[in-house]
């Protein structure tokens, strides 16, 4: 790699080979169609081609690759969830992340930083302790730590939070990491493309044909495609796609916003989350602070961002880090989070034969990108739910088998 870099620097032409083939015309049929070129759709395409030999696949994207929630998220990766189903699933994902850069031959800037979830009340100390025990039971590195330990890892933090909400303890999760989100989409996209998958950007699915309970075709802005298998991985657009096949779900769309500061010298190594203050923050390799809060309070199908969000989050950031009062916010944006009532995803087969769903990832699905790709590729290839996702089926709602991941997922991402 360094030699390539030197050559590149000395060469008069600074051209990198394109990441993907220029798109050909859509064919009239494919073995499988994946709707949505976010991380989840592209990862599924990659593993379908690499592990299951299904290469006649089209990934359809209404806008540009990685332009959905994948390119808008705050990239926190962790596995210290609350339910056994969740913990096992995210743990598998975290393990896949660790060698993904090698696998792609692309630097994902995967940075293992450690992750603190601050507890400001007795109730949250109790939840943290519970989480730590569930995590440890499944062999996950997770422990309750004292305010002193938090201070040691992060000397700039005001433990009293301006006297309003003193920190009583924290849940510490050493494997907590961040990664470069665009590169994840590019890596999976390039890998899928190299194995024969076609990625069609600017191609919106406008209809799906279902005949006697089976998927037979999809209509797009660039023509009709016959296919027996459709994987729908469209995050905030899921209810619209479900309406095309006549399925109902519990999903409700709420905007989730984020913002970044100007770059500064590295001072914040760990990822810091406060559920009570609705803040989470990390510092990227470029020095920017990436900050997020909780969901916007009401349903909205839009990626607009608001001044109220920046004001509110900036004020709460200052309770944690008063020395940042002169720091400037340079960008803000929003994504559309597809929320389920139990804060767990909806994955797998559906009542429609050949129509597979990977949705309900709300505010926390970036970390699950690799494991979703693997398990959905398996599910599509074998027409059978992968064993790690059976609890996440759409039917759990009619069977009253909800999962209760809220305590660990609501703000922590």
């Amino acid at each position: 790699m360094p030699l390539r870099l030197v050559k590149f620097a000395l060469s008069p032409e600074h051209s990198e080979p394109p990441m993907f083939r220029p798109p050909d015309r859509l064919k009239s049929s494919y073995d499988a169609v994946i709707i949505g070129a976010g991380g989840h759709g592209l990862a599924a395409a990659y593993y379908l081609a690499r592990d299951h030999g299904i290469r006649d696949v089209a990934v359809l994207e209404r806008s540009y690759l990685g332009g959905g929630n994948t390119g808008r998220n705050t990239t926190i990766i962790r596995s210290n969830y609350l339910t056994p189903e969740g913990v096992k699933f995210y743990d598998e994902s975290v393990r896949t992340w660790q060698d993904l850069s090698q696998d792609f031959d692309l630097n994902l800037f995967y940075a293992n930083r450690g992750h603190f979830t601050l507890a400001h009340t007795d109730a949250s100390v109790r939840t943290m302790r519970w989480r730590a025990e569930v995590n440890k039971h499944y062999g996950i590195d997770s422990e309750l730590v004292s305010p002193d330990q938090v201070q040691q890892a992060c000397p700039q933090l005001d433990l009293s939070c301006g006297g309003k909400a003193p920190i009583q303890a924290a849940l510490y999760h050493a494997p907590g990491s961040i990664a470069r989100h665009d590169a994840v989409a590019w890596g999976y996209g390039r890998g899928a493309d190299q194995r024969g998958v076609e990625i069609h950007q600017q191609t919106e699915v406008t209809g799906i044909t279902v005949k006697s309970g089976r998927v037979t075709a999809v209509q797009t802005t660039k023509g009709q495609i016959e296919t027996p298998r459709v994987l729908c991985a469209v995050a905030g657009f899921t209810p619209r796609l479900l309406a095309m096949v006549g399925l109902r779900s519990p999903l409700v769309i709420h905007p989730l916003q984020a913002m970044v500061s100007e770059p500064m010298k590295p001072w914040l190594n760990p990822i810091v989350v406060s559920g009570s203050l609705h803040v989470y923050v990390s510092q990227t390799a470029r020095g920017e602070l990436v900050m997020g809060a909780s969901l916007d309070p009401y349903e909205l199908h839009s990626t607009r961002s608001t001044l109220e969000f920046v004001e509110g989050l900036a004020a709460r950031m200052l309770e944690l880090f008063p020395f940042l009062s002169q720091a400037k916010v340079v960008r803000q944006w929003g994504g559309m989070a597809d929320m389920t009532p139990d804060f767990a995803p909806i994955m797998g087969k559906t009542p429609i034969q050949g129509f597979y769903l990977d949705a309900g990832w709300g505010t926390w699905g970036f970390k699950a990108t690799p494991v979703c790709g693997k398990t959905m590729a398996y599910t599509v290839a074998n027409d059978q739910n992968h064993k790690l996702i059976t609890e996440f089926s759409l039917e759990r709602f009619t069977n009253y088998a909800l999962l209760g991941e809220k305590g660990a997922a609501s703000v922590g991402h």
Partner: protein
Amino acid sequence: MKLMTCPLNGTRPISEFAYGGELRQEPAVTVSDQSWAEYLFYRNGAPGIKQEWWCHTPSNTWFIAERDTARDAVLRTFLFESEVQE
């Protein structure tokens, strides 16, 4: 959306209001478990013009807003008692 009109208190900043979800018809308690689950968990998630519960929190006034959830535009607001057609 920055302002909302409470049918009793007039137009106020949106920060004074809380969202209460889409207006839905509760089924009779005798319906099947399946239909009850539909009512409890399933939602009309696609964008469109919806009737929703909102509360003006300083006065604790619950009312209905007709809102386009794609554009975030409120079309009208009214008291549930006054005109919800069941």
